[in-house]
């Protein structure tokens, strides 16, 4: 496979700039998931156990959640190498994000586009490199981005198996699929369904492969592989589908939806056909959630949630790509275009269709509407379709018209990039710093520096400018920035299911009325945690502001009345 070095270097520069440039500085603070991953990676690198003292756990118990293991183990290697800091948490995700671009480029060049149109794989690569959907999730410590890499790899090996049915290729499918599945919850639904669908599409090849293996001399390898794979599948199901690892899925499952539980079910509960109605209500709600991923607003102005709800923000693609997505179903369904553009015109349109249909499934069965992280897996399929649409409207034109179309599309991309940069760098931190848990790292670092001056540091886990709405897990920030010895923390008897008290740090809501004013305490909380009329300037030791200038946290010394 020949690769143009000039284009490759441009692609790599593009990927490097968008994924690695100031990755530790922007977004300027770690969110709660990132510090949870970071501190668990730190404890693994130091002791081989998680924050609760479980040795090499198959899943990581977090507050109200069980985290999948792959990213934490990966991050532990980076923590070991460069220490516990922001860069070590975000670097593995940025690296796998960059590798995803390269793997998709190679995959599309080798298996998607016909040899005549293989240059389209460059287009796919560049579109992936500048995709706002992928860039945004590549610059945080999100598991989905790493999982996406293994999913693309899995689909690459599926195609490889389609071309050459060998046991080795089957193992490669199995390994890449299992790692993807162990990286992110949504992949637990996507991987089995997509692989099964692919095997159904190529069922005749599967049957002949099995027949061939069963009659060959080396059939013992086939049987051994089968037994090992069945055992691994059994273990994966035991731990991640039915065991404690499934708790995340249960807590966000669509059935937990407030409207469904409290406003719809009571209306049908008295009926003689209540059980049928419950089923109909559930399916209707699921279909609604599923179709929401095909709404224009998700793609054009609200998919990434970079601004306050109700305002026009950033969609998951550039506005100019919306038109290209509109015509993509026509391309997908046109046999004539498929034959021209794809190397396998029978298989690829079906694969792309099911990639998208199954890709939106995990997000649609959760109780959130239009969640862009849980369906990140569909992005490569969407970009391949956008590329096909570009091919149809650009290449199929006469010279002058082609130049005009190209100029207009380039202008559209230029405008889209400006808009995304503006939303990502200006409006997102300005409007949503609170939702990204901004301020906790600054206040934690201040408290750690001054903790020795006080008997107790009492931290209120509630935060937010609009009231006591958000409960956080602040102890993880304090553990993270103090690099607190995991062995001491693991054996601390005060540590419980939802509390993480350690050293002289106590994490509980501040109740100023019960405080007698005698203890040498430092209180940390939101401005509304304190009665403003009783706090003198001398008591207010330190303030952290959200990026929009509103007070986020106060550090109040209790004994300076």
């Amino acid at each position, binding site marked *: 496979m020949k690769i143009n070095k000039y284009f490759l270097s441009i692609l790599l520069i593009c990927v490097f700039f968008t994924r690695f440039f100031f990755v530790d500085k922007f977004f300027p603070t770690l969110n709660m998931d990132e510090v949870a991953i970071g501190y668990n990676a730190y404890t693994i690198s130091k002791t081989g156990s998680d924050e609760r003292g479980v040795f090499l756990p198959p899943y990581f118990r977090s507050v109200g959640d069980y985290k999948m293991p792959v990213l934490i183990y990966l991050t532990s290697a980076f923590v070991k190498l460069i220490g516990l800091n922001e860069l070590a948490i975000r670097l593995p995700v940025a690296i796998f994000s960059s590798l995803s671009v390269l793997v998709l480029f190679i995959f599309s060049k080798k298996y998607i586009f016909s040899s005549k149109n293989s240059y389209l794989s460059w287009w796919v690569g560049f579109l992936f490199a500048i995709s706002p959907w992928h860039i945004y999730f590549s610059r945080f410590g999100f598991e989905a981005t790493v999982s996406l890499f293994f999913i693309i790899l899995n689909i690459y090996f599926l195609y490889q198996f389609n071309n050459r049915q060998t046991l080795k290729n089957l193992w490669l499918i199995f390994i890449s699929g299992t790692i993807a599945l162990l990286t992110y919850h949504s992949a637990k639904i996507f991987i089995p369904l997509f692989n099964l669908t692919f095997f159904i599409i190529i069922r005749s090849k599967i049957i002949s492969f099995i027949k061939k293996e069963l009659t060959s001399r080396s059939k013992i390898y086939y049987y051994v592989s089968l037994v090992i794979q069945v055992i691994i599948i059994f273990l994966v199901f035991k731990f991640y589908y039915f065991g404690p690892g499934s708790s995340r899925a249960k807590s966000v499952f669509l059935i937990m939806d407030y409207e469904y539980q409290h*406003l719809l079910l009571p209306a*049908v509960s008295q009926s003689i056909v209540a059980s049928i109605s419950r089923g109909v209500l559930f399916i209707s709600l699921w*279909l609604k959630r599923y179709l929401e991923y095909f709404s224009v607003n998700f793609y054009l*102005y609200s998919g990434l949630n970079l601004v306050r709800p109700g305002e*026009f923000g950033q969609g998951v693609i550039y506005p100019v790509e919306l038109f290209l997505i509109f015509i993509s179903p026509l391309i997908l*369904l046109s046999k004539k275009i498929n034959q021209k553009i794809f190397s396998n015109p029978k298989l690829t349109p079906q694969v792309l269709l099911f990639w998208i249909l199954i890709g939106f499934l995990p997000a649609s069965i959760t109780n959130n509407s239009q969640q862009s992280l849980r369906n990140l897996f569909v992005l490569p399929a969407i970009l391949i379709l956008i590329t096909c649409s570009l091919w149809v409207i650009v290449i199929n034109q006469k010279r002058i018209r082609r130049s005009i179309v190209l100029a207009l599309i380039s202008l559209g991309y230029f405008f889209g990039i400006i808009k995304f940069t503006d939303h990502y760098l200006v409006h997102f931190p300005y*409007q949503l710093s609170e939702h990204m848990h901004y301020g906790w790292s600054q206040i934690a670092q201040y408290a750690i520096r001054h903790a020795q001056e006080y008997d107790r540091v009492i931290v209120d886990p509630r935060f937010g400018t609009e009231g006591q709405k958000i409960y956080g897990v602040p102890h993880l920030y304090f553990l993270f920035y103090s690099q607190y010895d995991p062995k001491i923390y693991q054996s601390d008897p005060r540590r419980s299911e939802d509390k993480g008290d350690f050293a002289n740090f106590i994490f509980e809501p501040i109740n100023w009325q019960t405080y007698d004013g005698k203890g040498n305490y430092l209180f940390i909380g939101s401005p509304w945690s304190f009665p403003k009329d009783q706090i003198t300037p001398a008591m207010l030791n330190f303030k952290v502001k959200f990026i929009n200038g509103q007070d986020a946290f106060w550090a109040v010394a209790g004994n300076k009345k």
Partner: protein
Amino acid sequence: MNILVLIIIYLFLFFNIKIFKISYKTAPYIFLTPVIFINLIYFPSLKLLLVPLILTLSVGLTIYNSKKYNLLTLIIMLFLILSCKPEISVFRDQNTINQINSQRGEDIAIYKNLLIAKLAHNKSTLIFTLIKNTEQYLDPVKIFASANYPWLNHYYSLGYLFPWDLILIFYAIYLFVNQQNKQNNSKLLIGILSIIILIIPVSLGQNEEYSKIIATTLALFLLIISTKSLGKLNRKYTFFAYTLACLFNLLHLLTINQLIVR
């Protein structure tokens, strides 16, 4: 639930399938009638149905039958647009103006420069408002899962058409893009243009009555397409699909009956 209603629904579906079986042998498109009927019961007002029904049929016939309907379609559409006189309010909508000012203010505070603020927000927010208004009528959620029925529990996910109609619409598109007769391309173009012309006025203003007409028109137009593709299915699949659709309809009806706001 009233047991009589249940019996009527059962009888209706039974005869519906019978009618389908008979009509399919003689004239395939007769079964359009019961399919439309079963969906009509969801529409909020029969008064609002007449115009879109005529309009949709004319657009449908334009696409599928003859060129002579082109002129008729355009005349009806023009009449409809002129009679509604939508207000062009999007450019003076206070919410939109506030949003532009707020986001521009944040840009100016960071960049100390008006150029990027202008580039990123001046016209784009207005264009997005137009798209948002248009999207309300083309949104698959609205059409297939969340239409506006004042008489029904607000939280129940029921569209103007059932979601499985989407499969038939996709099948219709598949048949369309793979057909040999190229003349039909112009018919599809006329159909798409008709829908765009219909929606432009409402995307500029907020006329509620007109909005209902648009929604109903689109729903019926899509219904004709899906019925058409049902007729094109292989015969053994057609009966199976139709029976399945009727069964789903029945389940919905049983549920809807309990969710009517009294």
